[in-house]
Each structure stands twice: as C-alpha cells, then as structure tokens.
C-alpha cells in the first residue's frame, strides 16, 4: 500500500498547513494549488493528500467545516487552528534550519 512518502517526511504536512494559513480551502483546492505552485518538482498524488489532511485534523492543527463551494455544492473546508499556527511557525523554522544545513552540506561536497 502506498503511503504518503512521495515527499520528505513531514514536508507535505508543512506545505498543506502553509497553504491553509493563507485561506480556508477544501481538499480539491489544496490539490490544485499544490500542483500549481510546485509544478512537476513535487509529485503529490491525490491519494496521499486526504490521509494527510485527516491526520492534521486529528492532531488538532487544522479544523474542518462544511460550506458551499464555488459551484454551490457543499465541500469540506479546512482552516488552520491557533495551535496549528504555532505548529506551522515551529515547523517552518525547523525546515529553514534543515534546508540550510542540507544546502551547506550539498555545496560542500560539490566544492
């Protein structure tokens, strides 16, 4: 069974939370936005998106609400909670540190 391992562990969570920090979105919109912004670089399958969303919801970092969508059907909108926002800040800082460190190491090898 394929698990959401397409991305570095935890990266998908970070991306989702970052997007939801801008505005509440439903799952399909998140998938569209992910495709848009990361293009072909990050392959996020639709399959791995929903388990990730549900996990974040169960962790209490995002919350869900049913609301009418653009085409007037009811969709499940996710938004960041207060503790989700704190988690995002923490994870963002972690990510910066990690990517900076990796960049450094990678460049070191090249040089």
């Amino acid at each position: 069974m394929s698990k959401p391992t397409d991305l570095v562990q935890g990266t998908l969570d970070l991306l989702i939370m970052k997007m939801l920090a801008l505005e509440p979105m439903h799952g399909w919109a998140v998938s569209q936005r992910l495709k848009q912004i990361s293009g072909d670089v990050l392959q996020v399958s639709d399959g791995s998106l929903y388990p990730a969303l549900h996990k974040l919801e169960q962790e209490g970092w995002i919350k869900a609400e049913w609301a009418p969508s653009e085409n007037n059907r009811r969709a499940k909108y996710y938004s960041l909670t207060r503790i989700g926002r704190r988690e995002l800040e923490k994870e963002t800082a972690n990510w910066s540190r990690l990517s900076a460190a990796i960049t450094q190491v990678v460049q070191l090898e090249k040089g």
Partner: protein
Amino acid sequence: MRWLHTVPLRLRSLFRRRRVEQELDDEIRYHIERQAEQNIAAGMTPGEARYAALRAMGGVEQRKEECRDMRKMHLVEDVLRDLQYAVRMMRRNPGFTLLAMLIMGLGIGANTAVFSVVDAVLLKPFSFRQPDRLVTVWEENMRLGYPHTDVAAGNYLDWKEQSDAFEDLAAYFGNAFNLTGEGTPERLDGIQATPNLFSVLGVKPALGRWFNSSEGLPGQSQVTILSYGLWKRKFGGNPQIVGQSILINDQPHTVAGVMPEGFEFPRGDTQLWVPIQFPGTQSGSAGRNVHLLSVVGRLKPLIRWQQAETQVQTIARRLAETYPETNKDYGALVIPLQQEFVRDARLSLWLLLAASVLVLAIACSNVANMLLTRGVGRTREIAIRSALGAGRRRVARQLLAEGVLLSATACVVGVLFAAASFQFLDNLIPPALSGAVFPTVDLRLLGFAVLISLLSGIVFGLAPLRETFRVDLSEAFRARSAGSGVRIRSRAFLVAFETALAVVVVAGTGLVVRTIMNIGAVDPGFRPQNVLTLRLELAANQYPTIEKRIAFYREVLGRVHALPGVISAGFTTFLPYTNFGGATGFFVEGRSDIPPTMVYRRETSSEYLAAMGVSLLKGRWFTEEDDRNHLLVTIISEGAARLLDGDPIGRHVNFGNPRGPWLTVVGVVGDMREEGVALPSRRAVGYTPYAQSTEVWFFNPRDLAIRVQADPMSLAAAVQREVWGINPNQTVAQIRTLETILDQQVSNRKLQAALLSAFSLLSISLAALGLYALLSFVVQARKQEFGVRMALGATPRQLVAAVLRQSVRWIGGGVLAGLAITLVVARSLSSLLYGVEPTDPLTLAASVFLLFGVGVSAALVPAWRASRIDPMTALRHE
C-alpha cells in the same frame, strides 16, 4: 490545550461513526467529481474523465481506510465491531451459544464457589489486624508423646518477659460460665484471657473498651466483654449495656465492651471474655505443672515465626535446666495462627479447588472443540475474509472476541451459580472459624471469576485458530471439500485430554467416597442410635460441695428415668468427641516400671456405659452400691487393660496419683474412639463412679446421655423441664443426639464428597459429550467414504467396528494418561484419606472402566449412524 480539539474529534469518530463515514464519503466524492469535471474540460470523455480521477486517487477504498487509520480510534472501533459481529454469530446459533454458555458457566461457577470458600478461609484471614503477624505458641513434650500441648502459666510469663521477638504475648483458656438473672439461665462457652488479648489480635470492641492492664488481678472489680451475638440475643442489642452489671457465675461483672460482629475468637461459639492474670505463678512448681493455656502472640515487624520459635525454644531449654522438676523435657513451638486455625481444612479445600480447576479445563476444551467443529463450518467464511484482505491478526481478533464474549456471559452465569451455592458451602468452613468467616460476593471473588473467564475465553477462543489458518484457501472455495481435508487430530487430542482429566477427578472422588464409607463403617465403640445428650455444667457457687453435686445427679437421673420411653440414662465427665482434655497419669500398684501413661479420666454414674452401648468385655458394670461406703472401684477400657499384664480384674490402679489410694479394677469395657471417629483413641480411659468422688473438681460429671425407645429429640423439652424443676437456675446446653455428634465427624467430608461427585458427574458428561460430538462430526465427514466401502461390500458391522476402533484409540489414550496423572498426584491426598491407599487399585480400576465405558457408550450412536448410511444417497452427493 490540544486535547480540547482532539478529544471531541475522537469521540465523534467513535460515536457518530455513520456521520463521520458519510462525511469522508462526501469529501472524496466531491474531489472525484471536481477532478472529473476538470478532466472533461480538458477534453476527455466523461467515462475517461471519471476513470482518470479515480486513478489519480489510487484506490478510493484504500485511501479511505488510511484516513480512518488517522483517527487512531480504529482499534477501539475494530474491537466494537468484532464484538458486534460476535453477538450476531451467537444469536445466529442460539443452541450452540446456550450450550457453550452453560458448560462454561458450570465450570466457572464451580471454580468461583470453591474459590469463595478458599478465599474466606485460607486467603482472607479473619478480622484481625495484620493476621499474618499472629502466631500461636505451644509447649511440647516428645518424651511423653505430646507434640503440641497447652502452656503452663509460669512458662508463658517467662516467654513473655525474656523474648524480644514478640510485640506482645497473650494467653487464654476456655471456660464455661453461668449467666443468670437475664431470663432463662444459660451456660455460655467463654474465654478467660490475659487483658492484652484484644490488643494482640488488634481488634477494637464495637462498643466500650478493651480490658485494662490491672483487670483480672485478684481483688480487682470483675469485668467482661460480650460477643456481638450474645449482646444481640440476650440483651436485645442495648447500646447502654456498657457499664451495666450482669451476673456471671453469680458474681456481678461490669460489661466493659461488646466485640464487633464476626469477631469470634478462638471459636465460633465463644460468647464472652473475662480477664485473668497469673501473678506469682513463676515461683513455685504449681505454675509450671498445670498446662492449661493457649498462647497467641504478635510478631515484631521483620521477625519471622521461625526466628521466634528458635527464641522460645532457647528460653524453654533454659527453663528446663532451671526447673528440672517441672520443665524437664518440655520444649516449645510456634505455629502461624492461620495455619493453626485451618489445619486439615487447608488440604481438602485445595483439593476441591484443584478438582474444580480440572472441571474448568475440561469445560474449556469442550467448548474449544465445539468452536473447532463450528470453525470447520466457517472455513469458507474465514477464507472469504482472508481473501478480502483481513490479516491473520484480524481474524484471530475476531475469534478471540467471540471466545471472550462467550466466556463473559458464562462468567455472569457462573457468579450467579456460585452465589446460589454459598448456603450449601457452610460445612466446608472449619468449625473453629464457623460463624467468623462467610463466603460473599465481593470484588475479589468477581475479580477471580472475571480472570478465569477471560483466561478460558482466550484459551478456547484461540484454539480454532491454528486449524483455521491451516486451511488452504483454494480448497476452501471448492464447494464439496467439506470432509476430505478435515483434520481431526487436534480435536481428538482435546477429547483424550478431557477423558484424562475426567479420570483424575473421578478417581479422586472415588477415594474420598471410599474414605467416607470406611469412616461410616468404623465401630465407634458405642451405639449412637436413639441417644439424647445434653450438658449440665454445675456452678461452683450453687454446688460448692461434692455431696450437693451427688444429690443433684441422683435427682436428675431419678426424674429422667420416670419419663416415658427412657431405657437408661447416665452422667459422665465428657461424652466422646466433645473434649480432648481431661487426661491424667495412669498408675498401677507395685508397678513403677510401667512408663508414665496418660489416660482419659471419666467420672460416671452406674448406668452411663450401658446407656452408651459400650460392650463389657470382662467383670461387671458399676452398681448403685459403688459409693463411698464401699470399696473404691474402677472400670478401665481395653487399652488400659493392655498396659497390665495378666488378668486386670482385681488389680489396683490410680489415676493422677502414683501413691494411691488404690482403686480396684472391677470391669473392662471396649475402647471408645474418644478423639474422633477416624482415628483410634490415642489414650485409654479409666471410669470411676461419681458416687465415690471426694472432690469438687474438673472431673465431676457434666454430660448426660439418655437412651430412649423412640426419637430422642422428642424428649428434650421434658428433660429440660425436669432439670429446671430441680434448679430453675441450672443451665442446660448442647441438647442433641449422639448421632448428631457422630455425624459432625464426617459432615464436612460428606459435603466435600458431594461436591466432588458433582464435579465428577460434570466431567464425565463433558468428556462423553465431547467424544460424541467429535465422532458425529467424523462420521458425517466420512459419509462418502463409508458409502463407497458399503457399496464395495463392507457390512454395517464392519463400519461400526471401524468407528468404535477409532474412538477406543482416543478414549484409551486419554484413560491411560489420566491413570498416569492420578498415580502421580494422588499421593498428596493421603492425609485426607482413611482406610484406603491413594493408589487403591480398586478405585483406580473402577474410574478407568467407568470412563472407558461411558466413552464407548457415547461412541455407539455415531457408530450406529455410520452403519445406517445409504450408499446411494452418500454417493449421489459426489
């Protein structure tokens, strides 16, 4: 504060499951639809668009399952679902469920009932504070043959002073007290105890106070503490009783307190406690010569009873050196109180518990077998579940849920069953504790029941598992594979196992039943039928002289004789089994070479021995002539006569005094079993006529035996009336028949045998049922084979033989294994048995044949069915 978000979510996914599932469904569908719309917009056909959207998702059901996993409640959910499913399975097979529940309920109930008594008697000890720190201390004199004897007051005081192993040591002895001035006069069994007894036991009175340290000394005001039962019965539970004065032995005693309900020390019939102390007994030989006291002590923390024993033994050795006159050869021993109080009951209770565990094991394997058989029917179902992706653990959990649910319902049945049986279990409680401990339904009991139910549920729930997984999936799907691939080895093993355990239970029961038969067949030395007995304890102040006593005995006997239906009547010091004390040294004139021997001494009226139905072996009975104006005479029992060489008649003997005065032996009677029907009396008996007694003392008669023509108890009221006609303040106690006294010797053995018989019956039936079910299954499964054999010319007789041969193999294996187990474990029963060896060949053979016979009978019906198979129908199915 994360839980503020997460807890409601978890609860929601648990309790609003349908809603949550619906939402998950909607959410995914919304995504698919939007994606499909987008794909159509990009130029795909609707069909293609939808397919592409689904493919992008990568398996909708799997994704959903992953989302469900995120809820972290799936374990709980699964368990709930398993249980739900199990309930459905149970309801679909009500017959199976009911039978399994009943079998398990009986097994669990039997265990719980027996455990309740074991718990009450052995594990949950008394109401004493830290009862495991309490010990009893005894003296012993192996040279005189007393391994365990009462303590002399002087020695007790020395132990108390010189030992530092005990927080405190208390001493007491039983006595009987006359309570007068409160309605009918009563003779009460009570205790004279050192004032510290209650603090040593660590039990506070329900009302009032403990004795204080000066009470019990001569010259102090007299006090008493009442038992709860006496307080309720005699004083109507009057809360103002403390401080009031009551008449005990015609002396005013102030009531200091009332003990709580259930406190009954040292015996169930102890009704009051009076303080006593022993000043000055350490000096002078009298304080070390009279061995009267029971001693109970509380160990200091961290001291083991063995250490305490070493210490009192050292002190005893020192005392033996200091006071050789009195203490030579006297040692000491310490026994934990709990052990002391339950003695023989311990082993017989463990035996019952062991038997009930065996019954449970049989019940478990039986239900396991039923599940196995049903499991085969469910092979297809489980195969389908496996094919649909249910892992082994998932299937195992499902089976487990069914097992546990079954055992949980059986647990309820079992607890109800146990609670209903409590009233029958009274007799299993040793008499020393009766009234003080009761089996009750409490948390411990429920805990025990739940534990064994759970264990059995797991055992028989998982039993079918191995079988189930051995099934080849492809084979399971082939419609007609029902019989061919069936493995019966594990089921045959279970049946043999049941048979083996049943043999053990039946053999154990057989041994106990034979013990009871042997005891019943023992000649107690007297004829117990149609004898009324009662105890008339004479108060020292009302009958201060021997003359007054003799006059009283005469008057009572005269009046009793005048009652209709009385054949004979007689007084004695103690009836058999009612007191193990009252022994004195036996001395023979001119024979200082005879080693010191203790004999029971009984002062009797002339007719007593005849009324008891004792046989006169030599010489004559006592007559009314044998009074103080005539020759001092005695009748001795056979055992005492053996101590004399030659003809005992006319020999001169004395009880208690090596220098005489000498009594002439005029008769020899058969030995009565004084101490218990199951053991020959350790001591012989010397009888003397009370009319020749010169002192008011311990040996004066108190027990009256009246042989009558008809029902003895019908005379009880009349006898009581006559006694009160002589002295309205005279106590009349322990009115019962001689047969009742004898019966008490075996009553707990009888109950034990009844329980064991029930267990045996249960195990035999279960084993037979197991075998029957398995053979029926086998015959059904081999139907085609039998059909073919018949078509090829096999006779029905040959088919019957084939089935029987198979069953004989299983039963035979089980029976032999059971025999082997019995031979190994039966030895531990030997102290419970009487007149039968633990490996008694007759009992063992009977058990083996019984099980074998029952097994073969259980096999007959399936075997017969095999012979009735119609080859045409059987083959048509092919």
